[in-house]
């Protein structure tokens, strides 16, 4: 009896194991069956922080026509890029994605489908977007995405703190040297010499992102002075030009006004988000992007502040930086045409304005017609941000070595400010590292082009 039972158990176990293995091989958890309604169903992946609701553009698109249905899937913020790229790599990507990482980071790795054929086929006008944003979605003379929303940077100042320091709140600093003078007047210490309030602190480390501002003042200044980090043909990196060195020297010189250790201790106590130094009244002046207006409205609605163009050196124009949320079609997407219909719908001026009206935060529309509409320009601050877009630079300085460039830039800046190296030596070293990385990437890129024909699709 035991032998018979044992045999039955063994056979049943064998069948079960084989069934599990076969199921594991053939089961496709990603496969979705859409209703057979004659419509084209597409998948749209978008990133969410906390709220999990269907995006306005999806709802509006699905209502506005009856041939394509967009199914929106929220992707949690954590490691979102890797999740989407994994789907691309698996060969079963969504039809359209919303992202904010540099487009070229995906385009250069062939994660996105070029959309020039769709643009030509439908007569779509890319001039509807700000030039800096068009530059951001272009790689090797091909277009890979449509800008959806953007951000530009401007100079925030706390009027009450200026007044408290005896400065005229109606006359914010006009130049970097005035920023330096204002800052000295505003900065206060307690009786133990600890810094309580600072006027302005230009970031000098990559770790200052979000704390002192999301862009490098030294990089911004170098753009104002006319720095060009790449040769015309995009093959030679130039990080130690006189313009860059002058900007770095300014920051180095700036910190001579303060005890550096006291500044470091002060920065160590600053936070991000609702704990940002500008919101908590510890920083009087900062260069920030437009989304900060929402934070002020949410956490410090009573704050008396102003926003003006970023100061520059005497005789040089202002500058800003543009970042962009974009919509793109991943490589291998099964319904590019339907995805394209959704993309151009979502970036239409009237839809962007409708979306703006439906939300309680300030989205900066990438569509220029929407950005200059009176329903968007509801405050002098927003007007400043729109004007700043005309002076915006793309953060994609060295497309094939984007991450390396910014890491090396901050490393060199840090070494200069700490006095570990002279700015000349630090930035020459950074240039070598970025150039080597660019050379490796270019070599790899050429190899890939010989072995993958994707770009010619």
């Amino acid at each position, binding site marked *: 009896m035991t032998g018979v039972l044992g045999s039955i158990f063994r056979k049943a176990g064998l069948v079960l194991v084989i069934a599990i293995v076969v199921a594991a091989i053939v089961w496709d958890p990603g496969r979705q069956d859409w209703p057979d309604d004659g419509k084209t169903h597409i998948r749209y992946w978008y990133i969410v922080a906390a709220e999990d609701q269907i995006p306005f553009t999806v709802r509006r698109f699905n209502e506005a026509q009856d041939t394509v249905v967009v199914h929106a899937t929220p992707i949690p913020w954590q490691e979102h890029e890797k999740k989407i790229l994994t789907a691309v790599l698996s060969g079963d990507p969504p039809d359209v994605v919303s992202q904010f990482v540099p487009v070229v980071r995906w385009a250069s790795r062939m994660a996105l489908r070029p959309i020039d054929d769709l643009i030509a086929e439908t007569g779509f006008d890319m001039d509807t977007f700000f030039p800096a944003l068009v530059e951001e979605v272009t790689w090797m003379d091909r277009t890979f995405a449509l800008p959806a929303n953007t951000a530009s940077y401007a100079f925030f100042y706390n009027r009450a703190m200026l007044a408290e320091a005896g400065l005229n709140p109606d006359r914010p600093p006009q130049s970097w040297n005035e920023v330096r003078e204002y800052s000295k007047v505003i900065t206060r210490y307690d009786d133990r010499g600890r810094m309580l309030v600072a006027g302005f602190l230009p970031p000098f480390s990559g770790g200052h992102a979000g704390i002192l501002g999301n862009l490098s003042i030294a990089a911004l200044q170098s753009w104002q002075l006319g720095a060009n980090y790449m040769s015309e043909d995009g093959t030679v990196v130039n990080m130690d030009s006189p313009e860059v060195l002058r900007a770095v020297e300014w920051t180095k010189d700036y910190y001579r006004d303060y005890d550096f250790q006291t500044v470091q201790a002060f920065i160590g*106590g600053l936070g991000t988000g609702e704990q940002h130094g500008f919101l908590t009244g510890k920083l009087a002046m900062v260069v920030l992007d437009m989304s900060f207006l929402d934070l002020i409205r949410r956490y410090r609605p009573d704050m008396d502040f102003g926003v003006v163009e970023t100061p520059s050196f005497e005789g040089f124009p202002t500058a800003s930086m543009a970042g962009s949320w974009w919509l793109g079609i991943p490589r291998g997407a099964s319904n590019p045409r339907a995805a394209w219909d959704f993309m151009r719908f979502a970036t239409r001026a009237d839809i962007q304005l409708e979306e703006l009206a439906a939300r309680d935060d300030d989205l900066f529309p990438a569509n220029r017609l929407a950005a200059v509409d009176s329903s968007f320009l509801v405050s002098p601050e927003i007007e400043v941000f729109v004007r700043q877009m005309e002076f915006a630079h793309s953060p994609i300085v060295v497309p094939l070595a984007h991450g390396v460039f910014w890491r090396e830039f901050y490393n060199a800046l840090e070494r200069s400010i700490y006095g570990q190296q002279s700015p000349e030596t630090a930035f020459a070293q950074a240039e070598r590292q970025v150039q080597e990385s660019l050379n490796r990437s270019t070599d790899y890129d050429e190899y890939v082009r010989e072995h993958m024909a994707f770009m010619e699709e």
Partner: protein
Amino acid sequence: MSTPRIKRLREAATGYAFLSPWLVGFLVFGLYPIGMSLYYSVSRYDVLRVPQYIGLENYTTLLFDDPYFGISIWNTLVYTALRIPLAVGGSLVLAILANQALKGIKIFRTIFFLPSIITGVVLSVIWLWMFNPQFGLVNTALGWVGLPGPLWLQSTEWSKPGLALMGLWSIGGARMIVFLAALQGIPEQLYEAVDIDGGGAWARFKHVTLPMLSPVIFLWTVLEVIFSLQVFTEAYVMTKGGPLNSTLFYNLYLYFKAFDDYEMGYASAMAWILLVITLVITLFQFQLGKKWVHYTGEG
């Protein structure tokens, strides 16, 4: 084919079939990635495009041309050297305290254990506030005893000791439990022998407790060295490698290369070098262990 042979084959097939879930898992999610990682380490590869074979270039670039390789190795070794005594020694001391026959000792053991269940990211954020140079708890406490508080994570000198100090947070965790179990397994007659010889508390500790605990101390030292060489979360959340790359640990740099720059080939080469370093240090520890680890039952 003879019947016994068929029977043996059938038995073997049944055995492998039952093994197959694990076997398939190991081959697909273990051996295959390890093999591919070795291949990628001699390639340029960015995950989304075909790999380009480049021989040992990644390794030579790392060893001879990459200024951050040496920095990250140094940072990791210093961190490891600082952390091990704190983590292993701290757990041992706590286990000895928790081994005392006091009323309510079980409650104390639970309290000691609790901090260790907090996850790395949460822990990092808590310590970020504790290390606040101006108003943080650590510097405030130092101020009470008249010591000037350092800049901690803002300082190139104190950032690594600061992160190593965080290891104290988890001394009441698994290490303490294992030490406690080992302590309770020490035969009482060994202590009685010391008492008969007229030895005091120190002699009991030196000649009985320590030798009897040496296999556990050795185990935790080996494991903690391996864990410490892979330090990542604290630096990623708290310092991003700064200031001045003083907390750019090896795994953090590997992460930057893999997931910021998508240089997976380069990152794979880094991973293999880390494996070799870990292997060398572990073998060295085993050699050293022969001189001080005492196993009961050995002649």
